Structures are given as C-alpha cells and as structure tokens.
C-alpha cells in the first residue's frame, strides 16, 4: 500500500509517532509512569541485592542477625506514599481521557461501519470509501461507528485512540491530526479468520485534496472495463476473501469462475453467469457455495451498477 508512516522507526522508544493535535499530555503521562516505575524498580533491586549479599548464609546452622516482625512507621510510609502516587496517576489519566473523549463542536462527522473483514467509511456528501479514511489536516473529526456482524475495534496508534465497534449500537470516537501523511488503522477486537487483515489507511490530506477526494469520480471511464474491475477488486476489499490465482481463501476464487457450474449448500445448482454474479455481490446470503460459510456482507449501496459490470468483466477476464 502507498507508503504508510512507520510505527517502529518513528516516535520515541516505546510509542509510535504522535500526530495528534488535541491529545494533551498523553505521551508525557506515559513516560512519567515509566520513569517512576524504573526508579522504584531499581530501588527495590538495590535493597534486594544488598540484603542478599550482606545476609548470604556462610554456615549451615547460621541464624538471622535480627528478627523484626513489624515497624509501624515504615508500614505507614510504604502504604501512604504509593497510595498518593496512584491517586495522582488516576486523576491525570482521567483528565487525559476526558480530553480524548471530548468532541469539538465543529467536528466533521464520518460514519464508520465495521464488517467482516473491512472498514466502510461514509462521508457527509454520501461518498463511500472502503479501507481508506481520508480526513483534512487540523480538522476535528468525529467517527460514528457501528458493526454489521461481530465486535470490532477501531484503533489509530499514531493518534492513541481506540474504541470498540459494536453491532446495533453507535460508538463515537474523535481525533484531530496535525500532520499530513498515511497512517495505520487496525482492528483490535478479535473478529475471526481475517482479523489481522482488517487493516485500513488513514490519509491525512490538506483541505483542497480533501475536497477533490469528496468530488472524485470513483469510476475511471478511460480504461477498459475489466481493468477498472481489477482496481475495484483491490480498492473495495474483495481481495480480503477472494483470490484471483485459484488459491482457496474465505470465499471462492475468481479464477475460472465465469460460467462454471456452482453447487450450493442447499443442494441446488446454478451456472455462474452475469445474473448469478450480480446477485452474489448484492445478495451474497441467497446462494452459498457448498463448502463455504455465509459471511460475505452485501455490497448494496457500496457499488454502483457500472462498478458491478466492471467486476463481472474482470471475472470473465480471469476465466479466459
């Protein structure tokens, strides 16, 4: 995919590059906890090592030098100080959480739908995109998310935000990116076979590019129909489940599919002609090919007729 910014090579030792415009002190808090932990850990280590070296048993019958069963002053100190520290960390974490969860009133609203196994984005003007979230830079964004099947979770590591995507319920996540570029989007709630391939790209662009993206004609009329179909195959996420080289994935391969006889789970048969192919794209649950699961979401409203034509031509091309 078009050069996504590295998570491991950029940013600090433990955290990926931070591109957020509104995150507050997230990274600072992370490293404050980190260094506090390191200091306390090393402190405990030093005490431990010192006690071992100074108390190592030399003879078998050697007894302890002293027996101390309690020390109220010490115990109060090591109860009260850690309690104070964690209360401070609690409030700090809570404060950052509120910032994270607060949506600016002028936020741009984009609907997100999680499906096995791709992300669909719907923009205010009705434009839809799959596995590609294009947003203008320095503009608060509000994602209104829902799932059509099982649980998913929408994760933007470079923005430090994540929210579960739940069927029959809307969850909201907001962010604002201060930096241009392409970034990773992962699904972080286990959702089945292709969970780890349920990736998308966050494209942060300037406002002119965003406007032209919104008005961009999805369908390129200048190239042959089957070639356009090949592009749609990748762009609309068909490639997550269907191969074009004959190998077996979640769904049947497209290679040699056209005009082949298909046997269905209910025992009926049909020839894979144009009518069948179009029906399978729009109403995939009607005819399930024997040996496969009923998992494909409907592409109704996601593809225009011309795009379906292009896919069918592409399948024909693959069957030559």
């Amino acid at each position, binding site marked *: 995919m078009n050069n996504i910014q590295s*998570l491991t090579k950029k940013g600090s030792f433990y*955290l990926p590059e931070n591109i957020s415009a509104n995150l507050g002190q997230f990274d600072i808090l992370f490293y404050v906890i980190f260094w506090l932990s390191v200091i306390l850990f090393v402190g405990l280590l030093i005490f431990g090592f010192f006690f071992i070296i100074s108390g190592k048993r030399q003879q078998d019958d050697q007894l302890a030098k002293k027996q101390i069963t309690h020390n109220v002053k010490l115990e109060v100190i090591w109860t009260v100080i850690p309690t104070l520290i964690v209360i401070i*960390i609690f409030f700090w974490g809570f404060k*950052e959480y509120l910032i994270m969860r607060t949506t600016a009133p002028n936020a741009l609203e984009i609907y997100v739908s999680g499906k096995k196994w791709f992300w669909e984005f719907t923009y205010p003007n009705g434009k839809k995109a799959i596995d590609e979230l294009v947003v203008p830079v320095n503009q608060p964004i509000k994602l209104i998310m829902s799932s059509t099947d099982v649980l998913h979770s929408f994760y933007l590591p470079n923005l430090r935000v994540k929210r579960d995507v739940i069927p029959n319920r809307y969850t909201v996540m907001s962010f604002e990116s201060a930096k241009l570029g392409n970034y990773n989007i992962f699904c972080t709630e*286990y959702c089945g076979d292709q969970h780890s391939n349920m990736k998308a790209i966050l494209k942060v662009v300037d406002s002119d590019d965003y406007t032209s993206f919104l008005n961009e004609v999805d369908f390129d009329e200048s190239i042959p129909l089957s070639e356009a179909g090949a592009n749609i195959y990748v762009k609309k996420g068909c490639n997550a489940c269907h191969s074009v080289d004959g190998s077996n994935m979640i769904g049947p391969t497209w290679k040699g599919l056209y005009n082949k006889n298909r046997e269905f789970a209910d025992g009926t048969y049909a020839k894979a002609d144009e009518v069948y192919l179009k029906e399978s794209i729009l109403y995939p649950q009607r005819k399930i090919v024997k040996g496969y699961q009923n998992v494909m979401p409907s592409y109704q409203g996601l593809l225009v007729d011309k795009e379906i034509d292009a896919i069918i031509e592409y399948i024909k091309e693959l069957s030559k």
Partner: protein
Amino acid sequence: MKNFITEKKGILSWLFTLDHKRIGIMYLVSIFAAFALGGFAALILRFELLSPDKILLTAKQYNQMFTLHGAVMVFLFIVPSIPATLGNFFLPLQLGANDVAFPRLNLASYHIYLLGALFCVASIILGSVDTGWTFYTPYSTSTDTAVIMMVTGVFILGFSSILTGVNFISTIHYLRAPGMTWFRMPLFVWSLYATSIIQVLATPVLAITLVLLMIERVWGIGIFDPAIGGDPVLFQHFFWFYSHPAVYIMILPAMGIMNEVVTTFCRKNIFGYAAIAYSSIAIAIISFLVWGHHLFTSESEVAATIFSFLTFLVAIPSGIKVFNWIATMYKGSIDLKAPFLYFLGFMFLFVIGGFTGIFLGALAIDIHLHDTYFVVAHFHYVMFGGTLYAFLSGMHYWWPKMFGRMYSEFMAKIAFWLIFIGFNMTFFVQFIMGSKGMPRRYYSYIEEFQIYHQISTVGSWLLGVGFIVMLVYLIQSLRSKEQAPDNPWGALTLEWTIPSPPQYHAFEKTPVVDKGPYEFGVEKP
C-alpha cells in the same frame, strides 16, 4: 515404614483414594499434562509468528491454537494449579490435620475436574474452538466451531473449583490443631482461605454466564446477540465479573507460597504478618469491584472512571506484600537454593507485571494499550512470572516432602536460568511492540514488527528447553534411591515435623501449637 505412596498399590487405589495427599499428587500429574498441552500450543503459536506469512498454520488454525492455549492454561492449569495440588497436599498438614474436612468431596472435585478436562479435550477433536478463551459474543454464538463442548467443559470445571473452595474453608475453620489460632496459621493457609472465598462466590457467575451462552447458541434466545435483541457488552460484564476475581484466584495462593519460602530460606520471621493476612482478604474483596477495567474501550465514560479508580486501589495491598517480602530478607541468613531463586524471580517479574498494570489502570493510557501486545506481556508477567514462578518455587520447596527424594540442585539452577532468560526474552519485547501499536490475536502483522516477533519466538525456545530440563531432573529424582531428610530446609511449619514422604495418617499424635509459624532464632553475637 509405609508412607502414603507405598500404603496401597494399584491404579484404583489412587483413582478412588480419599487421601488428600494422593489427590494432590493426581492433580499435580493432571495439571502437568494440561501445562504441557498449553505450552505446546504456545510454542506452535510463537513459531507461526516468526513470519507474517503462513508457515505452519492457516489463519483459522492459528485462532484455534491461541484459544486452545488460553483456555487450557487458564481453566485447566493455572486456576487449579496451586490450590488443588500444593494446597490439597499441604493445607491439612500445615494445620496439623490428617485430611481435609470432606475427603469424599475432595475426591469428587478431582473426578469433576477430569470430566471437565475430557470435554475440553473432546472439543479440540470436534472442531477446535476459535473464539479466544474469553468467548466474546456475538462471535461465539455465530462461529461454526465446537463452542458448546468447550463451554460445557469449563462449566463443569467450575464445580471442581467451587467444591475445593468449600472444602478448604471448612478445613481451615474446623480442623486447626489445638493452639493454632487464626494468627498462628502459616500465611499460605491465609492465602488459600482468601482464594477459596473468591472461588465459592465468583465461579457461579461464570457458570451462569456460560449457561446463558449455551441457551443462546442452541435456542437462539437473544441475550447477548444484538441481531436478536441482545447486548454483547452485557456478556463482557458477566464474563469479567468472574474472570477478574479469577486473576486473584491465581495470584493469591502464589503470594502465600512466597511467604513460606522467604521465611524459610532467610530464617526470618515474616515482616508484617497481620498486614499480609489482611491484605489477602482486602484483595479478595476489592477483586470483585474492578472487572470493568477490561472494558475501558466499550463501556460508558462514567463506568470507566469508577473502575479505573478501584483498579488503582487493588494495587496497594499487592504493593504492601512486596515491601513486606523485601523487608523480611533484611538481616536474614539467606540460602540461594532453587525455591528461593524462584522467589527472587517471582519478585523481579511480578513487580514488572505490577508496574505495567499501573499503565493499564490509567484511563487514557489504557485506551492506547488496550488489546495490544502490551496487555499480553503484562498478564504473562503476572500469571507466568507471578503464579507459575511461585508454583515452581513451592514445588521445589515441597518436592522432598511429597516424594521423599531430592532433585539435583545444580540442574535446578540451570533450568531456573534458562526459564528466567527465556521468559524475559519472550515477553519483554512484547511490551515494546505493544506500546508501538501491535494488536494482539493477530495471525499476520505488518512487516516492521517482524524483528520483535522473532526475538520473542527465540525466547520461547529457551523456555521450552528450560522446562524439558526440569522434567528430566524431576523424573530422575524420583528414580534415585537416596532418601531426602524430613526437614531439609530447616523450616518450622508443621508439615516438616513428620517423615518425608508422610505416612498415610500423617500425624500419629495431634500436634499442639504454642507459637507462630515463623519464629526463627537469632544468631548470638
């Protein structure tokens, strides 16, 4: 002189014994088998992750494998590990009793464990489950794998856990030797008491949840599946209402063992007996109030805030225990034998597990780290570095008592270092890739994470070798003829006053207790 092993012969005399010691040994063998199965699955998983592309397994097989690893390790290994094996064997002996309060119930809980394990293993053959050990809905109600079989197994295992808990509580209340007041009990007993309370109170909730899940899968009643009017987040609440306290079922007995080991190998009285005893009970109570921290990315903001606060509270009693153990080492006479090495390993790893828990408790930070490898590393530091290390420590500590044979100290040290280095290599690197954004339960991953995965996998091989070495020297010790002393470490609790291995009736005369469990003497200047 006959002991409990030579008392009767034949496989049936074991399978239907009412002797808590024999039941403990049978549990020990069973959970070793479970650990081997779960560990084998882990090694395959790590091997597959050497490359983002396919090596051995398909995506679905990978998902089945990590479910197997998680479910076996949690339900068949780590929950019963310490209470059912070392607890069963040594709880009565530490109290000066000849058996638990209900020996038949004890045997029943073992048979129930076997039955549950049978269902879990059967589920592997009948289409291994691919839901993850958490069985989250609606995935678990819609997948075509053998969820019902596995869930039935876990449901049955729950009863084994409850019965053990009931038995231990009664034993502690009624079978203490004369003179053994509550505050003269060894702290291992205190920790088993706290554990038992959680087992009895929390496990039924898991059972109910799993029954609801089965009803939903079989009859399609909409409890959790939103497509038929249910709520998937409700399942998460139910599930973690058990499974968070279950974390303390795993760690409390581990902490209990640490008290026995640190006092014996430092020849020191425990620092802050009462604080440790009370903090076990405090942990048991607070553990019921923190389940929501598993749901920071799905529950409401108000709930998340409350649960974050309560989560920080539960950190305090655990921290106090660590300080107490370090203080106990002060001015001691320290013997660096294998059980104590595992104690030190426990301290090292458990503290790292604890500190990384602070990251996860802080709301904003958890949003970033939730469901990444950071969480995977965190709970392995607590469960493996904590519970398993304590279990290994206790096993090496009580091995001569259980079998009357001593293992090779030299080999034990080699295995310790292999496991310690292998463990840190496997899991520390997972903190880094997690906070860098690598999600968990991923069959494939973006290429830049490959180097982290490779380091982790090589670490897992070291771990594997370490455990094989351990298996070898433990078996060797059983074959040796040399009799271990009755009290090789110079410990003061009651189980060390009887022969190794103990006779069938451990105490011929009921002991009378007139002092605390750790009253070691002082070197004369």
